[in-house]
């Protein structure tokens, strides 16, 4: 089943979705530059190319809904409302970071905005999302949970157990597969025998929907339907978003496992391009409006970097705190 796009969206909303995607894109580009300069340590899994998925799904969520994320979480975090400052400070390993410099890139999150600190064990977020969904159901809170995973994650056993549980108890969970065609360097066709990961939904007794993961409206439409279904108590949905990572998997990945032609084809379907073309074609805004958004986004990231640079490092003795709740 393909999600149909309803183009009733007003200009302000189209611009806002564009703005959110641009923020993620520029944030990630800045992260990459800062990483190359040695200002950000560790490793980074950047979200460049997949922005429409995070923004489209989060546009269908309410502020008190939850999401679980992966090793590639910056886009999910920004889209769910974690501040650029708190994420950047975390990457800088500063005490003001969203995890007080204990998590780093692979664990950014903030429960205050419904973002569970990211789960960097591939596939492991799925059962946790089911548990959050169970809690929402038991408390009759009306909340839903979006649980992101990759095409690689689709092959983890944890996902199978979780999707089955979510289906039998009709938990309010949206399982969102970001199929970017590769799990690290491994092409999806080599490790998955069915054509569409969404086809697997039938095995659990839940709807499986394919969305154009590079078109924010397609993703939002699929996520809205899934969220409504979840809120009606009808249970989970699996959405497969077909997309592409326009950057390397992690640090120093020259992408030798894929062709430059393939990359060029996907670059033409850049989610930012699709959305900006739509905005201009619909006369929802002018090029000057888009340029102004570009400047605002740049200013927000400049501010986040300045905040991170000037924030204090954690104190060494804080390493021993937070193991148990009473030792914070």
């Amino acid at each position: 089943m393909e999600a149909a796009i309803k183009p009733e969206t007003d200009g302000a909303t189209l611009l806002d979705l564009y703005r959110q995607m641009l923020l993620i894109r520029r944030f990630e580009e800045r992260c990459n530059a800062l990483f190359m300069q040695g200002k950000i340590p560790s490793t980074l899994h950047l979200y460049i190319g997949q922005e429409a998925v995070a923004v489209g799904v989060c546009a269908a969520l309410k502020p008190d809904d939850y999401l679980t994320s992966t090793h590639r979480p910056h886009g999910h975090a920004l889209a769910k409302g974690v501040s650029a400052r708190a994420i950047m400070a975390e990457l800088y390993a500063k005490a003001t970071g969203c995890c007080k410099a204990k998590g780093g890139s692979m664990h950014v999150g903030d429960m205050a905005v419904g973002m569970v600190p990211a789960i960097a064990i591939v596939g492991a977020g799925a059962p946790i999302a089911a548990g959050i969904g169970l809690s929402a159901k038991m408390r009759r809170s009306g909340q839903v949970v979006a649980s992101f995973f990759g095409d690689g994650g689709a092959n983890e056993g944890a996902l199978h157990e979780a999707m089955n549980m979510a289906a039998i108890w009709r938990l309010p969970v949206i399982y969102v597969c970001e199929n970017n065609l590769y799990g690290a360097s491994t092409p999806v066709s080599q490790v998955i025998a069915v054509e569409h990961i969404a086809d697997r939904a039938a095995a659990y007794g839940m709807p499986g929907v394919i969305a154009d993961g590079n078109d924010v409206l397609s993703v939002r439409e699929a996520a809205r339907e899934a969220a409504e279904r979840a809120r009606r108590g009808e249970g989970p949905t699996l959405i497969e978003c077909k997309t592409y990572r326009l950057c390397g998997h992690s640090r120093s990945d020259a992408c030798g496992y894929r062709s430059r032609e393939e990359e060029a084809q996907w670059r033409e379907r850049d989610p930012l391009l699709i959305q900006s073309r739509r905005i201009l074609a619909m006369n929802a805004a002018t090029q000057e409006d888009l340029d102004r958004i570009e400047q605002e986004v740049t200013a927000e990231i400049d501010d986040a970097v300045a905040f991170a640079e000037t924030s204090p490092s954690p104190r060494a003795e804080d390493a021993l705190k937070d193991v148990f709740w009473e030792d914070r």
Partner: protein
Amino acid sequence: MAVMRYQEALRLAMTEEMERDANVFLCGEEIGQYQGTYRVTEGLQQKFGPMRVLDTPISEVGIAGLATGAAMVGLRPVAEFMTWSFALSAMDQIVNHAAKITYMSGGRIRCPVVFRGPVGRGGQLSAQHSMSLESWYAHTPGLKVVAPATPADVKGLFKTAVRDDNPVIFMEHTALYPQRGEVPEDPEFTIPFGVAAVRREGADVTVVAYSHMVGVCLKAADLLAQEGIECEVIDLRTLVPLDMETVLTSVRKTNRAVVTQEEWKNVGFAAEVAARIYEQAFDYLDAPVERVGGADVPMPYARNLERAAIPHESDVIEAVRRTMS
């Protein structure tokens, strides 16, 4: 006080905590309609309904993750493993997620989940159904590990586990389920974590145990008393947090120690206790610390082979004698 079985005391604790706090719920395989493989949850689904006593698919990863996720957003799940031997596939959820979320979030998320279930050797269940692996959990920062030895303790410690704001590993012993003892009926009776119990006083040798080994050591102490050797038997009750003070106070008095455990001896919990005795009471020792533990083999099936792989009173007695010689 009422006399009841260990199993009944645990069920009473569950009932009381579920009545006290609507956020407490149970989940696991065969716990509801079937009322539990060891009948621990007998009658609870009738009393609290199918949502609060939730029968799950046979999905240990799913159960552990479900409980962890629910705990992160306001509930107090009690997840049962049919036996702790089956928790291995759930290890990622327990170790990587439940145990770490408070730390990774910079102290912003609490995860009040209890993982519980039976452990135990001696039923000829052989290699894949006889593990407890408490040392693995105790090794992991962020988990509390509880191993009650008496009916009163299983009640008081379980209630503390449910009220604790951290993941708790709660290990019951199948051989203890039918044992009877006095149990306080007061619904506010709890036993704090990290407070060991001196089960028998004695001046000659400190014997440290937990779970089923407490009873084994007490029997050994009775037999040794007939030879005039007085053992002080300490029940640790909780491995994390660990009450070393009670152990050290005893060792400073007896100058000898035997540390016991039922699980595999190699890199086991007894080694940790022994090391801490050396670190913190070396000058008081008149003999090397002795360890008693299970043989380092997968549990065999035949009765005599199984017997040879499990520590008994005689092993404790020999270890005590070695410290006295």
